[in-house]
Structures are given as structure tokens and as C-alpha cells.
């Protein structure tokens, strides 16, 4: 065979199949669109993207804090600033996420085949709460102590305290900086891909038209 000749694609190739599936389900003009339905121009759709933006700042500031270690921010003014950035990014993330949730709830964003997208959003919300909760427990300050001592009762009452020990800093810190953020980020990516693949659900009563 001449080296200059192109090698034909083998339809049975797993790589070719994967590439074709991606092209079919999520072509680039859906992933990064240059046109959208007119109704996406409403401000209510901004809450989704600013939630993602807040998450980026949460992760970025969290990476700095994790790199420097859990003690750093207590003794360094720079560390304290990064902790503040992490803290306020988290507050903004939750505020925007709740606004996004309310917006989608009142627009019934689960309609027309988008139930899984909604459900994953709900799971993201739940894991985010757990992530923030373990963050409070990982602060190594008075808030952490008081929250841990009180929170143990509900955890134990629910039966999870035997495995999820809020008094164990090492366990809470590991969950907070590694496993839970990976879970949130992964599900956010899945959530976005599903929105981009299916498109944005139409309003219940678009431009005075019939209800869909």
C-alpha cells in the first residue's frame, strides 16, 4: 500500500462508531450554536450560565485552597482572601442555582422529553448541598466544630453516621475537595450536554401561540 493513500474508515471500528455517534447526537452547531430561538433572549435564561460561571470561580478558588492545604488560609491574608473568594463564589453559586431552579420550575422545564435533564439538575442541587456542607465541616474553625457536633445527631438518626462521620475531619475534607466536586462538575457537564443536544424547551405559551 502506498503510504500517501488515505486509509479508509472501518465502519466496525469502535473509534469510528464513537465519532459518528457524537456527530449524530451532538454536532458542533448544537454544542456551540450561533443562533438560538428568540425566547432564549429572556433574562430568565441567564441564571443557568451565571450558575456555571460561579461554579468555575468556586472550583478555581478551591483548587488554590486545596493546593496550599487546609491550615494556610487561617494564617495568611492572601489565603484568607482566597477563602473569601471561595466562600462568596459558593454563595453566588447557590443563589443563581436556586433562581435557575425556580425559573425552570415555573416554565416546567421538564416538558417534551427533558425529564432526565431536570432530574440531573435536582441531583446536582442535592450533591452541591452535600459539598457545601462538607466544606463547612472542613473549615477547621468554630463553625466547623459547632456544626459537626450538632449535625452528627441527624446523620446517626438516619443511619448514615456509621459511614459518614461528620466529626472525622479527614473524611469530610477528602469528600469536599475531591469526590463531591468531581460529582458536581461531571453532572453539570452532562446537564449542559443534554440541554445543548435537545435544545431549549419552548415556553408554555410562546408569543401568544397555542400551549405545547
Amino acid at each position, binding site marked *: 500500500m502506498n503510504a500517501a493513500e488515505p486509509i479508509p474508515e472501518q465502519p466496525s471500528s469502535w473509534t469510528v462508531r464513537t465519532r459518528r455517534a457524537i456527530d449524530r447526537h451532538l454536532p458542533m452547531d448544537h454544542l456551540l450554536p450561533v443562533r438560538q430561538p428568540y425566547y432564549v433572549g429572556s433574562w430568565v435564561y441567564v441564571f443557568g450560565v451565571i450558575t456555571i460561571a460561579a461554579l468555575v470561580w468556586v472550583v478555581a478558588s478551591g483548587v488554590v485552597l486545596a493546593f496550599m492545604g487546609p491550615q494556610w488560609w487561617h494564617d495568611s491574608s492572601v489565603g484568607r482572601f482566597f477563602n473569601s*473568594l471561595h466562600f462568596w463564589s459558593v454563595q453566588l453559586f447557590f443563589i443563581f442555582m436556586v433562581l435557575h431552579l425556580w425559573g425552570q420550575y415555573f416554565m416546567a422545564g421538564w416538558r417534551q422529553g427533558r425529564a432526565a435533564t431536570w432530574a440531573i439538575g435536582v441531583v446536582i442541587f442535592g450533591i452541591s448541598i452535600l459539598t457545601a456542607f462538607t466544606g463547612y465541616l472542613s473549615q477547621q474553625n468554630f463553625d466547623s466544630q459547632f456544626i459537626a457536633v450538632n449535625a452528627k445527631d441527624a446523620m446517626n438518626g438516619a443511619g448514615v453516621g456509621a459511614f459518614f462521620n461528620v466529626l472525622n475531619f479527614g473524611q469530610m475534607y477528602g469528600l469536599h475537595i475531591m469526590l463531591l466536586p468531581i460529582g458536581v462538575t461531571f453532572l453539570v457537564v452532562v446537564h449542559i450536554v443534554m440541554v445543548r443536544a435537545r435544545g431549549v424547551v419552548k415556553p408554555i405559551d410562546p408569543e401568544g401561540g397555542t400551549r405545547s
Partner: protein
Amino acid sequence: MKSMGATQEEYYRGVRMVPYDLVKELMLALAGVGILALAVSAILSSPDVAPITIATWAQSDPVDFVTTATNELAGSTTSAGYGNPYNTNGSGQAWGPIAPQTWFGTRIPIDSATTFVIEPLQRGTSSNTELATALDTWQKADSDQQGKWTDAYTKALPNATVKDGKVTVPDGDYGPLPVMMSYLLGIAQTGGLDGLLMVNGRFYQTDYTPALLFMGDGGYLAGQAQQWNLLGDQWGMMNETGRYPGQTWLWLYTMWYQVPPFTSSPAIQVSWDSMHPMPTSGSSS
């Protein structure tokens, strides 16, 4: 099979489309949220009240410390009678036959008297003959005798005087307790008990379960929390030191704490105490 791409085009058919720049929107959102977060961080900082230690507890409120330690010996603290996952001395939460607290057994064993008092004394002052004698007397006494000593000592402690950090109670038959408690208080005031409660037989440790349970049994932690307005009847849904928004993600749920009849419902309390410090039946706060 109908492709997802075709589905979207079919879905949007007939809908007016307008130009859109997704990447620009994301970049503007990143910049806008970033400026907001940076500004608020620079202006308002973030809460960081120093944690309390067992040393500060023993120094600031030695009577509460000694009372708590005596109650650990008597088995009358929250931890001593907690039940699983720490011990089998309590039944724990249950909804009829559903008792998840008992399902997984005693996975984090805590014997309050041994963990918080006896072992630290044995480890902290192994060469002290006065203490060794007191410990020997305590351990050789039967439970009835131990109960009489702890009962008498507990009743005397509200009338205790504190001088130079030492706790003195009116004369009485307390057995070896005054000696034991004097040494335990001394170890605690120097910071030794903070370390002794973390001993796990290995060099590194990150598990604060014994120390936090012991502090939770006393009144000092809750007293400090009260000063920071953290108790459930003070700030309700907020629960964070300083003038900060608290755990915002709980607003949707913790507002029910403020609405009758949920304000006094133990069922809803146990459901959400996991993320929201409130006084509970299993807590000293």
C-alpha cells in the same frame, strides 16, 4: 433511529431564530460573576472564628469541664448514653420498627468513662503514684460505690470554688474523684488532653470524633455558640458566626423551622439537623 440532531431541528421548526454568541455570553458571565465575587470578598472577607480547644475550655470554665468529666464517669452525658454508632447504651432514633441508627452496629466505639477520663489519665501521668493509687481505687470499687462518689461529687460541684484554675469542692465522701479530676483538669489546662484524645496508635490522625464528642457533652461549646447567636432559637436558619449569610442553600427548607407547627416538631428537626445546628434531644446545645 431518529438522530438527536434532526430532533432538535424538527423541534425548532417554525420558531423564530436569532443570532447568538454562546462563548461570548459565557465569558461575560465569568467576568461579571468574577468581578462581583472578588469585590464582595475584598469588602466583606469571610468568617473564621478560631476553634475552641479543650485547653481553653478547661481554663475558661474549669467547673463545667470537671462536671462534664465526672458525668462521663457516671455515664450520664449525651455521649455515654448515645447508642450506635458509638455504643449500645441508648436506643437511638427510631420510627416504629424502622431504626436505621441500630442497623450498622457500633462502628465508632466510644466508652465515655474510659475514652475521655481513664485512658487519658493513664497515658498522661503514668509515673504519678498519687494518681495511680486514685485510679486503682476507682477501678477496684464496685459500680454502686462509684455511683455514690460521682453522685456526691456532682452535687457538690455547683458549690465549687475556683482559685488559680483549681476546682475545690466542699468536704465530702468523693473517693478518689478529687485527685483524678484535679489531674485531668491540669492535663487539660496545659493542652495535653487535646492531644491525648487524638491518640490512635499511629503518628498521623485526622479524626476528631472523641474530642468533639467530649466538648459536645459540656456546656462551654454551646455557651460559646450562644454568644455567636448560633443556637436554633436565636438565628434559626442562619447559623454562621459573624454577619454572614449562613448556609444559603438551606433557606428553602429551614424556613419551616419558623412556621408553626413545625417550630416544635421533632420529626422535621431530625430531618434537617444534619445541616442545621439546632438544639436536639441528643445534643447539649
